[in-house]
């Protein structure tokens, strides 16, 4: 009975892993787009927007994600209802993805910005000197290098985001954490320890897999990179 029960619980929770992964990927893609835009604003120092984005980044990084999640889930509908727009029908999943995307975009913007700046102004000048336009230089020289530089930080941000998706159950998303809570609710609170052990092992496993994937990508892209000291 004992081991069988563990197996059933494991299978039940694993059923919801696609929801967690979908949340992760959707938020990551949205976050990357937003983060890139914010990074461009920060690098170019576009007057008014620059200050706004600095404030946004500070807010995103300095307040707990849980507060942001509640602000978006409870606050935004309240705000919009005053203008006659009702968005209460939207699923919690969408609120969760939007919150995570906004949250992560602040982190990604910093990652992208620092990677871009790390490549250096000299490379851009070298591109200009051989007659490339800015877009050409960006696409052929700057971005490939910046991407490699950004990879370790990008990996950490993705892992953090994956762990943060466990908060989505607080607004009613049934991801693996939500499923665990449901199982516990159905069992009248029995076997809670067991369920949480299983779920922590699932999170751990997926985290290790993400780590390995990122490490592999890093190794692949490192090949083309020649260290300054080696030339």
């Amino acid at each position: 009975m004992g081991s069988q029960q563990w197996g059933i619980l494991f299978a039940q929770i694993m059923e919801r892993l696609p929801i967690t992964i979908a949340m992760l990927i959707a938020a990551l893609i949205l976050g990357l787009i937003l983060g890139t835009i914010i990074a461009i604003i920060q690098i170019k120092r576009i007057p008014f927007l620059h200050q706004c984005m600095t404030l946004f980044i500070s807010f995103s990084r300095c307040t707990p994600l849980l507060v942001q999640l509640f602000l978006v889930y409870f606050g935004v509908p309240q705000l919009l209802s005053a203008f006659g727009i009702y968005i209460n029908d939207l699923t919690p999943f969408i609120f969760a993805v939007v919150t995570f995307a906004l949250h992560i975009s602040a982190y990604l913007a910093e990652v992208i910005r620092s990677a871009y700046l790390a490549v250096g102004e000299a490379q851009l000048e070298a591109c200009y000197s051989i007659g490339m336009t800015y877009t050409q230089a960006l696409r052929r020289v700057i971005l490939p290098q910046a991407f490699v530089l950004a990879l370790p930080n990008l990996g950490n941000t993705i892992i953090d985001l994956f762990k943060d998706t466990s908060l989505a159950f607080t607004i009613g998303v049934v991801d693996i954490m939500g499923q665990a809570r449901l199982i516990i609710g159905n069992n009248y609170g029995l076997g809670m320890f067991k369920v949480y052990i299983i779920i922590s092992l699932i999170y751990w496993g997926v985290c290790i897999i993400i780590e390995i994937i990122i490490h592999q990508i890093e190794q692949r892209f490192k090949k083309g990179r020649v260290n300054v000291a080696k030339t």
Partner: protein
Amino acid sequence: MTVFDWEFAIDHIPEVLKGVPITLLIAVVSIVIGSFVGLFMALIRVYRVPVLNQMTLVFISFIRGTPLLVQLYVFFYGIPALVEAQEWQVNPDKISPLWYAFIVYSMNAAAYTAEIFRASLNSIAAGQLEACHSVGMTTWQGLRRVVFPQMMIMALPNMGNIFVNLIKSTSLAFAVKVVEIMAIAKMLANQGYNFLEMYLVAAVVYWVICLLLEVIFHYTEKRLSIFKRAVTV
């Protein structure tokens, strides 16, 4: 109904502020305990102490690879189960939720500080400890008088980040029924459906704490960088 009830928000700021001491208490206790344990683990990792090294690796991987919320739940339900199984003369229901928070947050801080201390230790040249030996210090004396002070200065910026992250993550302590800033805001919000107001107040409180800490850390770093320069010159 107005969009944003300013009066309600401002009236309830003092109540939310009552949660600040608990938040700071959890963060300070766990960073202190976590630093000691983290330093110990960093030394284990640097010296590659046989069995302990592998155990530390697994511990750090687990803490960094699972959400804090899950860890809180595991210990919140795991410790009472353990206490009951061992038939200790303790009533698990009587354990204050703060203890669970202290244990879990300290473990978290330990895992993260261990990695930072390890990196800082590795960046200090081995020659320094050899120099200590050559003037007759024991390894412990050398570590304590020469290596640790340098390590602390190098680790400080990252320690600041960890502390700010700890403050933010205390918002999850509701899972073990600790009443801090977030829990108070939630209760007040549920009473009158003033979600926007209360969560915004909570966000601002966290934000202000975080900005204050940043200023403090920046100032400390600047002061300590005097010693840093002295070392390199």
